[in-house]
């Protein structure tokens, strides 16, 4: 982070801090980092609730009974790969001779993987609901759907956001602003990946054990 802040992406015009000019793009990156801290706390609170309630199944299905191992392994694999491809996209942007086309290409790959992840999750949720394992069946399931669903919602928001950014980079090429935006969306995507690793462990792995 320190490196990014001190060398803001695509620093265009020479600034003179003595005249009260603060570099807008690095400022926004710092703000986004703090936003991620708050998002961490948000997920942390959901995790805490889930952990307290995970045994409160009220005679309903337990994690062991409902979690489908191939599905969540596939989800994990897809999301980790998408994190890698989004990293390649950011790398493309930071290269000296990076091309907009290649960047958009990697973003499209990332997008498709992300969409596949959301699709699998929707499929998992509908299956569960059709089998009677709904959000209102037990406190455990309330916690499960809310925690996993919140993550899925984050991923979906990221997808819409990424689409908007692809259009913008296509239109304006690499500028200080588009570079900052690409950098931030990449950060967001890695963050969601990190959260998923916790989800995978705390919800699914411990759940099926």
């Amino acid at each position: 982070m320190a490196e990014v802040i001190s060398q803001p992406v695509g620093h265009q015009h020479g600034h003179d801090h003595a005249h009260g000019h603060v570099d807008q793009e690095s400022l926004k990156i710092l703000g986004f980092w703090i936003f991620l801290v708050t998002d961490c706390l948000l997920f942390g609170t959901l995790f805490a609730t889930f952990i307290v309630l995970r045994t409160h199944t009220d005679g309903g299905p337990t994690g062991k009974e409902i979690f489908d191992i191939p599905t969540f392994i596939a989800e994990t694999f897809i999301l980790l790969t998408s994190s890698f491809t989004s990293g390649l996209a950011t790398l493309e942007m930071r290269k000296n001779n990076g091309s907009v086309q290649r960047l958009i290409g990697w973003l499209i790959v990332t997008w498709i993987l992300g969409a596949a992840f959301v699709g699998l999750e929707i499929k998992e949720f509908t299956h569960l609901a059709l089998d009677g394992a709904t959000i209102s069946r037990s406190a455990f399931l309330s916690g499960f759907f809310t925690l996993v669903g919140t993550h899925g919602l984050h991923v979906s928001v990221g997808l819409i956001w990424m689409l908007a950014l692809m259009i913008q980079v296509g239109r304006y090429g690499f500028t200080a602003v588009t570079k900052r935006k690409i950098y931030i969306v990449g950060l967001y995507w890695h963050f969601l990946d990190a959260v998923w690793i916790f989800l995978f462990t705390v919800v699914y792995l411990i759940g099926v054990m």
Partner: protein
Amino acid sequence: MLESIKTFASHFFVTGDPMIYGADASIVLVTVAILFVLTYFKKWRWLWDEWLTTVDHKKIGIMYALAAILMLFRGGVDALLMRTQLAFPNMHFLQAEHYNQIFTTHGTIMILFMAMPLMFAFFNIVVPLQIGARDVAYPYLNAVSFWLFFFGAMLLNLSFVIGGSPDAGWVSYPPLSELAFDKGPGENFYLLSISISGIGSLATGINFMVTILKMRAPGMKLMDMPLFTWSILATCIIIIFAFPVLTIALALLFIDRLAGAHFFTMLHGGNPMMFINLFWMWGHPEVYIVVLPAFGIYSEVVSTFAKKRIFGYKSMVASMMLISIISYFTWTHHFFTMGSGADVNTFFAISTMAIGVPTGVKVFNWLFTMYRGRIRLTLPMLWTIAFVPCFAIGGATGVMLAVAPADYQYHNSYFLIAHFHQVLIGGVVFGYFAGLYYWWPKMFGHVLNEKLGRWSFWFWNIGFYVCFMPQYALGFMGMTRRLYTYPHGLGWSSLNLVSTIGAFMMGIGFLFQGAQILHGIKFGKRDTTGDPWDGRTLEWSLPSPAPHYNFATIPQIKGRDAWWTMKEEMKQPGYKKEPVHIEPIHMPKSSGRPFIMSVFFFIAGFGLTFDWIWMGVIGAIGVGITLLARSFEYDTDYYVPVDEIERTEAALGRL
């Protein structure tokens, strides 16, 4: 058809109470009057251009302050209604259910829609000026925060005449607040209005943290920052760590109510204590969120009006940081009686008492600053002096409450009510009043009348003790909180009557302040110097009110009390004014989108309140579209040309 409209209307509009019809009528009248005045004087354009679309932090601050003062009025009327109901035994002034709604809205409004926005008003009005910045880090986001607060507050206030007010207390504990026990839309109003404004609060926390860390004028080291700015930094840290927890607590309760989940229900494995823990993990830090800025204000006021540097600057900073950390480790003192066992209670009892230590350090520092100072008893100083004993007593009763075994006696009694009002009024409200008087000239360019202010001061202060001291005794005598009436012969009657008289005295104090504001608008003495108090910090180096770009040239800071140091320098014999070199100033453009986006938030919130999913979806789509529109906007700032700055500065006599 007509029948179904009738049943819908009687469910939709609150009916059956003359007071509510009165409120209906007055809301309609006031709305019509506002619409008429705006149209008659052709002020619509002005309202939109100057206020609704502004991203100027000073104007946003003023809107926060006005909204908060209105909410203080609303919450105050609620308080007087409750005290009227309790004045005599067996009163039938309010129905039991109505009483529940009133104490709920009173508490919610006072904490979330009065204290919080008034605090944000000070963030906005003071912080950028004090650190020599032209703006906050994210001006557009700042406008979003304000409008989210505003429409959140509107949503809650609407519940009084539409749908029905929440009635499960401002803490809204489940299972009482669950669907099974609380059908009405009131509880939804509570959850959604706080959630919407809470997003804004969190954004403000991030915004000002970055502003303070990154936007300070060159030369201003962290340890040169004015203590008020320090207090805001500490507050922002707490906001960032506490508000996400509240968001989740409220969201989970809402999911329980909307989707039939079982986080906090009694059946199907839910755990109500979970909510109570989460609520107070935010709730306890919240009281420090609102009181730390007041501490910052006292520090500024004391050193200005005692004409001395603040005593023990470093220990002041350290104690604020300590408070912001310890405040996370005390939340369980709100439910010692839950039965979590002696070990847990001991830990939280000790941590609660520990917080008194840094707070005590601060009080002594203020006293030492006053000691041998040349004290001027202006209104801000009077409120600061009144704060000291009031807060000291409040702190002492707080330590009494922190003794876990004893708390089994005081818990949820009037002793508690007296304690927290003593710290909230004596600490927070007195402090914010001091701040309003202190910075009023900077906000509006005129000084308020002292005489009216003194009347208000004495009514508030005497009224305070008359109102709340008897409540300590009532608590010991067994009177519990949220009690709507009581029979004869318990020995409570005369104390309750005295308490009500005190409440009305505070009401009179508030009226004097209203008169003071009106008087100020008409006859207020203009502040032409920009420095009416002979201040020490940078905001007093600017004209009152400051031009929209704040500083024509950014000052170079050489240490603490920056403006005082500069004034001393100017008094030196050989002092030569440096030639002013003006350059174009980079400023953000106004935008109507924060307002429009918040309207969509309001639409979504209103729809979900009534379980009208379609309306919730429309609102959410509107929010999404406005967010995307912002993402596609690249032309967001402009430069103020040099000749415009020169003209403005010349008109202010600064060139």
